[in-house]
């Protein structure tokens, strides 16, 4: 099924004209508070990040590892809500001119109302969503609303995903595909190896969409490994870890080491 490229895809393709690999980062909205979230986004954009995932915190982040898990629950303890997350996203997309995606779990959409959620994404300037616990089979309403709104539903490839399913996931995605580099949850080390290259080749041949790779990407070397193989390197937990260790102000410097 040939689809016309979405806003997200177009933005990625455009950025790729100037760079051989893009950098996407991940933050949890409201962690440690919304002011700091805004500041980190600003620093990241200034440091040269090309796209960003904004995670709306959820109490049961099943697919996340310890770092992001903790960020989720701290954000909630500090009073984060879905409404506040939308408000923050609205301000962020207004102020910064890169594509922003939401990442969250399905219950957030479900309880908000899937259609309402998607139209609110639209008005907030969000270009894509990643919902790791929503396989296409469970998400028809979501997919329909997203396609109608021109927002990209981004699905995930994994080293366990057979080729036929990759095609199925690609058919139900737009904007990009998120390839997880290994089994497991976010925030653990990944071996950047021949196996990974082979897997990425399979991903590449299974979709025409831009590919991003995440899970365990955390250094200049990792990104160099990915260069030429995929379109986007996703640094997730590592930026949160840097922020926790060295403060919000340290994030910019860290990002600069990645894109330098």
């Amino acid at each position, binding site marked *: 099924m040939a689809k016309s490229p979405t806003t997200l895809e177009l933005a990625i393709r455009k950025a790729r004209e100037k760079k051989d690999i893009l950098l996407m980062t991940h933050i949890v909205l409201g962690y440690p508070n919304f002011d700091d979230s805004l500041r980190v986004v600003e620093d990241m954009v200034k440091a040269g990040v090309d796209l960003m995932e904004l995670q709306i915190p959820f109490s049961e982040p099943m697919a996340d590892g310890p770092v992001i898990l903790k960020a989720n629950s701290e954000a909630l303890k500090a009073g984060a809500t879905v409404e506040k997350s939308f408000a923050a996203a609205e301000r962020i997309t207004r102020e910064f001119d890169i594509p922003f995606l939401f990442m969250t779990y399905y219950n957030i959409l479900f309880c908000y109302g899937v259609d309402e959620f998607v139209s609110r994404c639209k008005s907030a300037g969000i270009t894509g969503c990643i919902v790791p616990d929503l396989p296409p089979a469970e998400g028809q309403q979501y997919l329909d609303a997203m396609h109608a709104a021109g927002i990209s539903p981004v699905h995930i490839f994994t*080293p366990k995903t057979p080729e036929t399913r990759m095609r199925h*996931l690609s058919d139900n995605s737009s904007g990009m595909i998120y390839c997880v580099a290994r089994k497991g949850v976010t925030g653990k080390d990944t071996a950047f190896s021949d196996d990974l290259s082979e897997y990425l080749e399979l991903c590449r041949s299974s979709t025409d969409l831009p590919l991003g790779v995440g899970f365990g990407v955390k250094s200049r070397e990792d990104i160099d490994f990915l260069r030429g193989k995929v379109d986007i390197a996703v640094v997730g937990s590592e930026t949160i870890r840097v922020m926790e260790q060295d403060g919000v102000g340290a994030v910019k410097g860290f990002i600069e080491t990645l894109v330098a």
Partner: protein
Amino acid sequence: MKNSGYYSQFGGAYIPEILVPTFDELESAYLVAREDESFWQEYIDLMSTYSCRATPITRLDNLTEQLGGANVYVKREDLNHTGAHKANNVMGQGLLTRRMGKTRVIAETGAGQHGVATATMAAKFGFDCTIYMGAHDVARQRPNVFWMEQMGATVVAVTEGSQTLKDAINEAFRDWVSNMDDTHYVLGTACGPHPFPEMVSWFQSIIGIESREQMLERTGKLPERVYACVGGGSNAMGIFGGFLEDKGVELVGVEAGGRGRGQGQHAARLAYDDATIGVAQGYKTYFLQDNDGQMQDTHSVSAGLDYVGVSPILSHMHETKEVRFEAASDTEVVEAMQRTVRNEGLIPALESSHAFAQAYKEAPDMSSNEDILINMSGRADKDIFTVADAVHDPKWQQFIIDKAEAYRAEMQNG
């Protein structure tokens, strides 16, 4: 992976992509086993040589007389090896794990019963075993942790979230997404992504199948009502499973009423109206959550009913009114337990005591031609710390204080 496992709007499989092939494998192993009569026979053989199936049905002679209404019968799942109905599910999944050629099992546990059962099964089948348990529960349920460790299991205290059952489930999934190749996740109740609700209910249906036959043999008819406590819903699905086609049998699920209505005070998802439909832990059902869909703290005197979700099949049966849902309060539950202990010499687990409490409320209004059947899902003698605290026994407290003194002295001297 097919879009299956729905019970009207409830159920489904909301799982991380990486687990899709694992669930496909599990579903097909389950479906093959279900078709294969020799599998069920193997299961029955195991349960009747390793545990003591068929478990008996006991008539409560004294309480029937005291209550002055229906005849009260009890299905004795407490007599299972390891002391609860959890053994049924665990042994069934053990057989399936072996069929799938996996060598390691993981499980969540709240009260510890399912953890002990899984660790026991792993010892029996020779599997490696890791049990995830909320750090709060590890602290509360040390006796169960002790036995799991004696069985050779690794018990991981989960310090995330509310440090209770739901967090242990999340953590088990986090293990599984890393280790699915050699590992099966033995989910402990009729919840979670498809095929778990259906599969766990299938294994537990051994309770209901036996019960129906035993009641017919015993009383020449079916009971008018069947009571089961509802945490995740596995023991309830198990006993109800024997009576689904029997229109004259009213099925009553009893949830944890805790301190009464109001978020955070109880764990009644269906009997009260504090829960709403949501999707978490891989499935869609009623959850005790806020408007945003964030899960809320629950409360119950019994650690095993203290869960935010409930079997999607039971949510469905709630809507179709196939099952009536009630809640029993902490106080009623402790009273029902003590009453049962003192008058019948049975020690129902605090979980099971919810079913007893509700039955005792209703039996007096029924006639002596009517029979009720309570599922005694487990025994409380392993939960002595919880029970002793619930009944505030000062002699127990003194014993613990003295024992602590002795341990302290021992540590200082050696």
